[in-house]
């Protein structure tokens, strides 16, 4: 079966929906999502979205330039400054646009949108709706999509991107309902497929965040950028690693070690708990590693002094998570927390128009790397990125389609797609024919533990080299796996089989990038090279798929007005 569309957007989270809402209305647009759009991981974002509105009494002197500076400094100077400026400038109109679309932001006295302090920000500029900001923004954009009658293919997993001669021609997708592989011809494709959090054993991400969009694009020939930069969130609930928002510290929460001390005083004396995430996560892990944690595993996030009223009003979701998943009430007890993988700064290499080097292929949101977050993302900037760059992707992909009108050979595209589909079919047939003793989940968990142990918060040459070798071993075993299920009707094992290949690619690129980058910058901390080295490493890592192996090259960082300086908080 072949389906035809002008623009195909893959992913129904914030970036995908923002793109769909900004796509030209006269185009034939469809959003494909492997889950119902409201089940996307964007729904779990909690703390807020940054924009220099200046509504907070202490934020009167805030401006988009200061927001851009904080973003660049937070990135450890690896973000492209033109991109950071673009995002922070667009933040203000985008925020008002979201409010007009129906997002029920919390309010300050006087009725203006409320803002709270967040890590690494010079002013309180994070707009929020209690601690459910992602939920309300995702629902609002979905509601607008219903209003605009946007078309969705729900529960289709895109499996292949068809790229030939530097141009994107379409996609293949697995329809869970029918169990069939469907060929899709498109004039342009936008990937808004999210991050790869579950490549790590401990992650705050949804279970569906396996990163297959990134891996698929990579294997189709699209370069990846800065993949070694992986954000670990300082505060995830012990056990299930559910996110405890940075907003909890923004509202005044303390981090406490087993001596009852607010240990951030030793790491970031002026900003304390509100230093950027890379610094706080490392501080917590250092406390734990040096025996000042509890049971060798966690420290406490203490909210008790905020009082019952503030916790119930500003952090109701956090309280609910603690009650149900931690068995404690943060009004009465401190929360046991530990760092966990949270965000991927790196991703599909795109420019400020969200265009990749492949013609007709765009990417936005966490799966992409523009780059605005550089080596470390600030809290409150990820939802901002999804909406700002989702919109940009929708606009530029639409313009591209209008420019190429009629110049694309439909016959040629059809041939390429059929060729890709035949290859996929033979791979699936092989999986059904193979007889392996173990299923894909065994390798899946092995990879996730490996990445956590050897490519985590603290990195060193020996462990990284070992990890790289083991990833290649796991890949070898993956080639001989078989599918245990005997049919493809709602087959979630098949989904994991397909996506696991991308997890391997992502793991390999992260590890290679981390091994090559002999410095410490933002989230990438090398115990054997503990300082930043601007002379050699103030540059983006670009990974290309070359004959089955990633190949690394480097690219200059765009610097406009903020000269790199030492990063102190």
């Amino acid at each position, binding site marked *: 079966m072949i389906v035809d569309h002008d623009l195909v957007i893959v992913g129904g989270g914030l970036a995908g929906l923002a793109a769909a809402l900004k796509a030209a209305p006269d185009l034939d647009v469809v959003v494909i999502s492997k*889950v*119902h759009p*409201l*089940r*996307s*991981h964007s*729904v*779990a974002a909690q703390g807020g979205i940054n924009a220099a509105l200046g509504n907070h009494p202490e934020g009167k002197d805030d401006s988009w330039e200061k927001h851009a500076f904080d973003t660049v400094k937070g990135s450890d100077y690896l973000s492209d400054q033109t991109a950071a400026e673009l995002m922070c400038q667009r933040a203000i109109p985008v*925020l*008002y646009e979201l*409010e*007009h*679309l*129906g997002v*029920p*932001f*919390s*309010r*300050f*006295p*006087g*009725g*203006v*949108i*409320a803002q709270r302090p967040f890590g690494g920000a010079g002013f309180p500029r994070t707009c929020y*709706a*209690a601690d*459910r900001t992602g*939920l*309300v923004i995702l*629902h*609002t954009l979905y*509601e*607008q999509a*219903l*209003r605009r009658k946007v078309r969705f293919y729900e529960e289709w997993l895109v499996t292949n991107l068809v790229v030939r001669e530097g141009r994107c021609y379409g996609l293949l997708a697995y329809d869970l*309902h029918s169990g069939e592989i469907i060929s899709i011809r498109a004039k342009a494709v936008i990937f808004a497929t999210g991050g790869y959090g579950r490549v790590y054993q401990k992650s705050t991400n*949804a*279970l*569906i965040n396996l990163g297959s969009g990134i891996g698929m694009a990579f294997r189709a020939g699209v370069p990846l950028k800065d993949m070694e930069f992986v954000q670990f969130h300082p505060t995830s609930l012990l*056990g*299930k690693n*559910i*996110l405890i928002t940075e907003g909890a510290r923004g509202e005044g929460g303390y981090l406490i070690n087993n001596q009852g001390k607010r240990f951030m005083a030793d790491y970031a004396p002026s900003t304390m708990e509100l230093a950027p995430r890379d610094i706080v996560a490392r501080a917590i892990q250092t406390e734990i590693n040096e025996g000042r944690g509890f049971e060798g595993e966690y420290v406490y996030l203490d909210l008790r002094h905020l009082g019952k009223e503030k916790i119930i009003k500003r952090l109701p*979701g956090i309280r*609910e*998570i603690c009650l*149900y*998943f931690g068995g404690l009430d943060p009004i009465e007890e401190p929360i046991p927390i530990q760092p966990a993988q949270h965000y991927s700064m790196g991703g599909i290499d795109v420019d400020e128009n969200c265009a990749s080097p492949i013609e007709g292929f765009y990417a936005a949101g966490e799966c992409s790397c523009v780059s605005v977050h550089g080596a470390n993302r600030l809290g409150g900037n990820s939802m901002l990125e999804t909406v700002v760059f989702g919109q940009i992707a929708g606009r530029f992909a639409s313009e591209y389609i209008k420019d190429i009108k009629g110049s694309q050979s439909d016959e040629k595209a059809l041939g390429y797609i059929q060729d890709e589909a035949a290859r996929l079919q033979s791979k699936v047939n092989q999986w059904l024919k193979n007889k392996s003793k173990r*299923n894909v*989940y065994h390798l899946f968990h092995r990879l996730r533990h490996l990445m956590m142990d050897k490519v985590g918060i603290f990195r060193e040459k020996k462990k990284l080299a070992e990890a790289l070798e083991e990833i290649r071993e796991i890949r070898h075993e993956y080639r001989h796996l078989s599918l*245990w*299920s*005997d*049919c493809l*009707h*709602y*087959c*979630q*094992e098949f989904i994991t089989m397909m996506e696991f290949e991308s997890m391997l690619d992502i793991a390999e690129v992260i590890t290679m990038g981390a091994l090559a980058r002999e410095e410490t910058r933002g989230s990438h901390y090398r115990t054997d090279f503990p300082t930043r080295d601007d002379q050699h490493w103030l540059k983006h890592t670009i990974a290309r798929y070359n004959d089955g192996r990633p190949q690394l090259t480097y690219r200059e960082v765009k610097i406009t007005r903020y000269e790199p300086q030492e990063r102190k908080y």
Partner: protein
Amino acid sequence: MGKYVFRILRFDPQKDKTPYFQEFEYESSPKDAVLDALLNIRENLDPTLSFRHSCREAVCGSCGMVINGRITLACRTILESLKDKLVIIEPLPNLEIQKDLMVDLTPFWQALREVEPYLQPAESHPPKGYRIDAKQMEKIYQFINCILCGCCYSACPVVARGQGYFGPAALAKLYRFVRDPRDLRPFSQWEKIDKPQGIWGCDTVFRCHDVCPKDVRPADGIEGLRRKLIVEKLKKVFRRKPK
């Protein structure tokens, strides 16, 4: 760790004539959620077991199902909170089974579309955003907690009668907009819920309140709509000029 028995309703309409129960024994931590146990069973015992899941933190609304007779989210039901080591798991009622624990939510989403669930503000917006009193905004916070998991729809005895009732979630969503100070939808537009499939269908037995994992209390919204509807109708009567 302890040995649990999971008795799970299985059904593949492509293969099976009728649904049947299958038992799995699995060593689980009492701290695990039912969703963890289901994932373990799929990964280790039967990869064909189908169920939806995403966030594992009760915010995405994927994993509504019936656990020991109670409609709830599998991710938030911790094994030790169950009385028994026998865990009986069934798909959400009032909806067609697609496979095993996956149900077809099409009628649920259709009902949502019926109420036009999007903000309908004035043509022109204040450039720096609306000024809304914090208290007024907080009044809709109860309803924006809804994650559209469909638990209330499944529990609703009126939906079970199969006469096209919109169900609690869709009506609560409508109330969220009717109460939003920015929303200017005319009364004539939402008056279409003035029928048995709309707000008058509710039996006020509050099964939706019992099962809602997010404490939305959808029937509060339905009652709110009823009150508002009556007030609007009276206004209409009094505004009518004598001929």
